[in-house]
């Protein structure tokens, strides 16, 4: 494989960029694979990559209905963090942070991981206390966290509303300095390129139409491009999980919802890290292009439409102006929606299923992007070893019947409340 570097860039410039190789091939599906991963999103691509790299399983296919990276990995607000309260989520994602820190070099693809910090703002003492509980838990788990008072917040984001004319004044916030953002598309492409190089077949425009299950064991899948045999099949399709589960006669603790995001026109940099508003649902960061990237609430009803409605955007931006009044004169350039697999406790599921050889990776709610590397890493382990890794040992499907829930927000099963 061609190595990307400043030297290769210069070299290619002198041949008019005519000699760049394809980042990934466009193979015809083989009739049989050791592992088939359904879903060419970030998690699926990462899973295939780690199967090849960590477990030397290279006879792997990724089956993607559309184009790779077209789902939530290309539709999120690019935030990466490990500021969780529950140990299971915190340690899982902190392992992921380590993968992020080396990802550009490992993939030889600049994913622009940029740890400029995330600040969760608090607007009451009660909220400060809740953040303290989370931040202290993070610290005891070895994750960086800082509690900021109002003045410290003001130093970091002086353009926030610190006036008296504000409905919910800023009391302070919880900051994870090592959190940040990454270039979302690059993550998908970087994984795809390396996986392809190690022998993984990336098969786009191929829809899974059914499964071949015999005596409780997976034998293969049926697709729009023919039947494919597989010893093991990993489901990694985020918002489409319920559609495939239905084909398997499985019901899951997941509802499908749309989450919208939007960007403003690009302006000169003035916001460094990620900031979340604590008196409503709103978060914001500024991209390397200068756009304000903003998001918030779900539209609030089951949806498979990759688009949403304006009142939700209005609601989210109302929170935005309550926090940053200067946004008023900026213009909203683009809105889009992603389909979320909302689990009933807000935490993901990475597990085996009752069908032998069928593995499940779902329930990421709004937070799938940040976990892309660790999700792929642990899912690859679970598939390769046919058992969960310690890191995903609490992210199992049976936790809903045992009661070992991981409800970070304490909202219960009404996923649409956000």
């Amino acid at each position: 494989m061609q190595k990307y570097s400043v030297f290769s860039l210069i070299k290619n410039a002198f041949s008019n960029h005519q000699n760049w190789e394809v980042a990934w091939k466009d193979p015809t599906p083989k009739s049989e694979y050791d592992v088939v991963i359904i879903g060419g999103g970030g998690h699926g691509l990462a899973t295939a990559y780690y199967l090849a790299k960590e477990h030397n399983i290279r006879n792997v296919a990724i089956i993607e209905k559309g184009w790779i990276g077209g789902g939530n990995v290309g539709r999120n607000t690019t935030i990466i963090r490990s500021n969780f309260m529950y140990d299971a989520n915190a340690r899982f994602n902190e392992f992921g942070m380590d993968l992020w820190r080396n990802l550009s070099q490992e993939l030889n693809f600049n994913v622009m991981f940029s740890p400029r910090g995330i600040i969760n703002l608090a607007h009451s003492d009660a909220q400060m206390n809740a953040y303290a509980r989370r931040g202290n838990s993070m610290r005891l788990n070895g994750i960086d966290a800082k509690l900021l008072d109002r003045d410290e917040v003001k130093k970091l984001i002086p353009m926030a509303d610190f006036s008296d004319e504000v409905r919910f004044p800023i009391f302070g916030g919880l900051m994870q300095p090592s959190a940040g953002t990454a270039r979302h598309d690059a993550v998908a492409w970087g994984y795809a390129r390396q996986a392809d190089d190690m022998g993984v077949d990336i098969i786009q425009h191929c829809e899974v139409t059914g499964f071949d299950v015999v005596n409780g064991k997976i034998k293969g899948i049926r697709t729009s491009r023919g039947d494919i045999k597989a010893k093991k099949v990993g489901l990694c399709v985020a918002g489409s999980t319920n559609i495939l589960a239905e084909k398997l006669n499985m019901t899951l603790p997941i509802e499908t919802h749309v989450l919208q995001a939007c960007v403003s026109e690009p302006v000169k940099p003035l916001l460094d890290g990620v900031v979340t508003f604590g008196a409503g649902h709103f978060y914001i960061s500024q991209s390397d292009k200068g756009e304000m990237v903003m998001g918030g609430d779900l539209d609030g009803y089951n949806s498979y439409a990759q688009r949403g409605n304006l009142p939700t955007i209005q609601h989210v931006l109302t929170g935005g102006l309550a926090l940053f009044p200067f946004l008023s004169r900026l213009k909203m350039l683009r809105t889009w929606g992603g389909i979320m697999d909302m689990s009933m406790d807000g935490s993901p599921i990475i597990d085996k299923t009752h069908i032998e050889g069928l593995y499940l990776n779902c329930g990421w709610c709004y937070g799938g992007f940040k976990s892309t590397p660790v999700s792929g890493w642990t899912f690859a382990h679970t598939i390769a070893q046919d058992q969960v890794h310690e890191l995903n040992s609490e992210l199992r499907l049976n936790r809903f019947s045992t009661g070992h829930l991981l409800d970070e927000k304490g909202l219960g099963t009404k996923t649409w409340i956000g």
Partner: protein
Amino acid sequence: MSQPFRLNKEGLINRNKKISFTFNGKKLFGYEGDTIASALIANGIHLVGRSFKYHRPRGFFGAGVEEPNAKLQVEFNGHSEPNVNATEMELIEGLSATSQNCWPSVNFDVGAINNFLKMFFPAGFYYKTFMWPKSFWYKIYEPFIRKAAGLGVASIEKDKERYEHKFEYCDLLVTGSGPSGLASAYAAAKNGAKVILAEDKPRFGGTLLTDDVSIDNLSGKDWAEKIITELKSMPNVTVKNRSQVFGYYDHNMLVMFERVSDHLEKKSKFTPRQRLWYIRAKETILSTGSIERPIVFGNNDTPGIFLSAAAKEYMKVYGVLVGKKPLIFTNNDSAYETALEFKKNNVEPIILDTREEHSSELIDEAKSKGIDIRFSHGVIVANGYKKVKSAKIGKLNKDKNSFEKIETVDCDCICVSGFWTPSVHLASQSGNKLKYEEKIDAFIPDKKKQHETSVGSANGSFTLEESLKNGFENGSNLSAKITDTKTEIAIPNVNEKKYGAHDKFWCMPLPKNENPKRFVDFQNDVSVSDIEIALREGYRSIEHVKRYTTLGMATDQGRTSNLNGLQLVSNIENKIVPEVGHTTFRPPFTPITIGTIVGREVGMEYMPTRKTPMHEWHEKNNAVFVDAGAWKRPRYYKQGNETLFEASKREAKNVRENVGICDVTTLGKIDIKGPDAAEFLNRVYTNAWMKLPVGKARYGLMLREDGIVMDDGTTTRISENHYHMTTTTAQAANVLSHLEYYLQIVWPELNVNAVSTTEQWAGAAIAGPKSRDMLSKLYPDLDVSNDALPFMGYKEAEFFGVPSRIFRISFSGELAYEINVKSDHGMFMWEKMMEVGKEFGNQPYGTEALSTLRIEMGHVAGPELDGRTIPSDVSLNGLVSKKKDFIGKNSLGREAFNVESRQKIVGLIPIDRKSSIPEGSHIVQDQNAKLPNPKLGHVSSSCWSVENNNPFSLAIMKDGKNMIGKKFFAVSPLKNKSIEVEVISSHYVDPEGKRVRS
């Protein structure tokens, strides 16, 4: 000061009103009716900005929303705004515009070095480099890239303008006032339909303002004026200019953005700047017109290169020449109209037509006027850096892939036309699949998805006759279905020029050894070679091409680039365009200010504020308020220089020693009435309710179906079938909805009504050892003894002449009562209590003291009932009936809910009896253990126990009850604190609960 490019007569501007403004500090003037763009062009200024990536000089390209380049930083009305579209912003007195993304100036921009290094910056270059050494990315590369980001500068000042919303309903919404839009609106209006006609531009008429046509012997412009005047006079019609419908949402909801007052020099104080219209239309006519697309050629981004229709619009609408030596470069007839317009204004154009020599009405007219037409010709590359000076033109061979002859001609502008692209955005947003129309090389709407009907050029009909007919018919038919009235309207006679066929040609080839940039997307500097690289590297899906190259992702959203990009991909991939597909059209059509989207819910109005009837008293008595949802509650009443800690301690202590009163109006109150009320409560609460006597209250606990505690509160049986339920402040609305859910859906057989009475009653808690004494003064005629009004007792009595309810309930753990009077009497009650209570040392107390009192009593509240705890976690399992069923009961049997080591509530006191334990601390065995340090629990609530005069906390801790007596550390690494603590019972004060019963 003369305007060298202003025509003497042409145009619709008001030459009687001069408007002065500045551009990059230079004072200039234009006329009323100008845009910033037309005024600058009139002054001969073309270089206005720099491109995003290569910092190439850029001028104007269009005359409206399609403009990709001319985005300026504009200061007006005392505020600076970035990325203002110079072709849309109307000139107002005193406006000052500056170029963006350049330093030190637009004329000399250091960033332009990128243009010379552009060979090293192809599409996606940043994915391939900046990776070594690793730390450089964080320290050097990224900060550098970020510095280069963005176009204009956002002001961080608070916006003082008003933005308003409007909800509107209509039978027919017409989006665009060109010929087809006017016809549709007119026909529908005549049928009596409620019509809204929206026009994005300040002037109605669309292409009628610029095309050389006549309708019923009137010029297009005059006909448009006639129709608009008539529409405006009709009561069933709303006509709006400066109003863009930017989004087509579900269930035929369209959203319109109205620029109400930016164009006004003086406006009334309360007139909004912009207004957002939510329009629910029964039917929608999409008469959004079409946008001219360019032909791609070398250095086609040089200032002085325009879309040909834009050049015509500058002449016809603004009386401005975009140049005096124009080259017209076209593949179709419409650019001939531009040429003829130049000619009319005594400017000699040269037409380069990619088609072979042929004839049509327009070509013949141009010929007859002596215009120099060169068939099979096109522009290869524009020369000139900051302004086009000449062009290398070529005669194309038969296959149009190389040149028979190349020469250079002088010119000062190039007007380019590559045919027309219907504006299908709204149709696509509606869910319309769109289809590719071979005849016009573009997408048009397919089968309607909602109630959208596209007419005129938005639907691919490019003749006036067809557009009008289309408009009249659809406007009439769609509205007739709604109004049941059909007024016959004669379709007017039209005089227009017939166009010949266009040439399916969109990109000039390059001669050998020449490699100028040929831009597809101007603002984002995406060139033909960038798209070639993306495809070469396997980014083959159109969405991959878009994302890898950023094609169409700039603020103009690719209005002039998308289709050419598609053509290029289809050529290289050897696919037909419909196979390549198009990228998704998403709202908004053009960028919309966030202020408009938000409207008036800003500042203090972000969320409504709820106030109790006694709010004003609290305010007057130095209450410091705390937000409890939307409510404002007194947190403490500040005396002198007291801190929160001091005041709350004083207030709590006074309750423990004397008596205090607290405004508890915000607690939710629900009236539950009906023959099955008791049975209903029995199912809703975990404890038993069938036997509660009339005149008694009981504490109840509610679960969610997943077994988690939802809410708690007391409920009183007022009469046989009437209960008064109280909830926490936070959960009041949710609990009512929850009850309605079960009553309406799950148990419709229960004959019960539930209604919120929170607002009907003002509530005050009287707590403290002297509260009974005080009560007896408040109710001199009432027996308030422990026997007559025992704990959990209830009475109704007159409170100095107003009806009231007395509940003997307690949250503070003290002897306490809660008095309710009707809200209008709330202030009266409170003032009376303050007056009467004086002799007992009564003081008001706020939520902070209330917290202290409940914490040291071990009463749980929000921090403990955090949506994750079950009854046994908070020692409320005594309230969980084993005998009966209730909401959530079945969940309580789960394995994890019953393990011995499950976290349970305990009390903590610091060993030193001095150090307060910060809330949110965690309990660990070993404060110095290696990370991750196992957590045994967390501190949920802390207070300074006024009873024992030392800190006390509640914690939820693993195996809690068995830990009592043991010592641990409560650590808060965030606050750098580690406090040795002893685990004790959560009931620190009066564990037997004697006081409440005393």
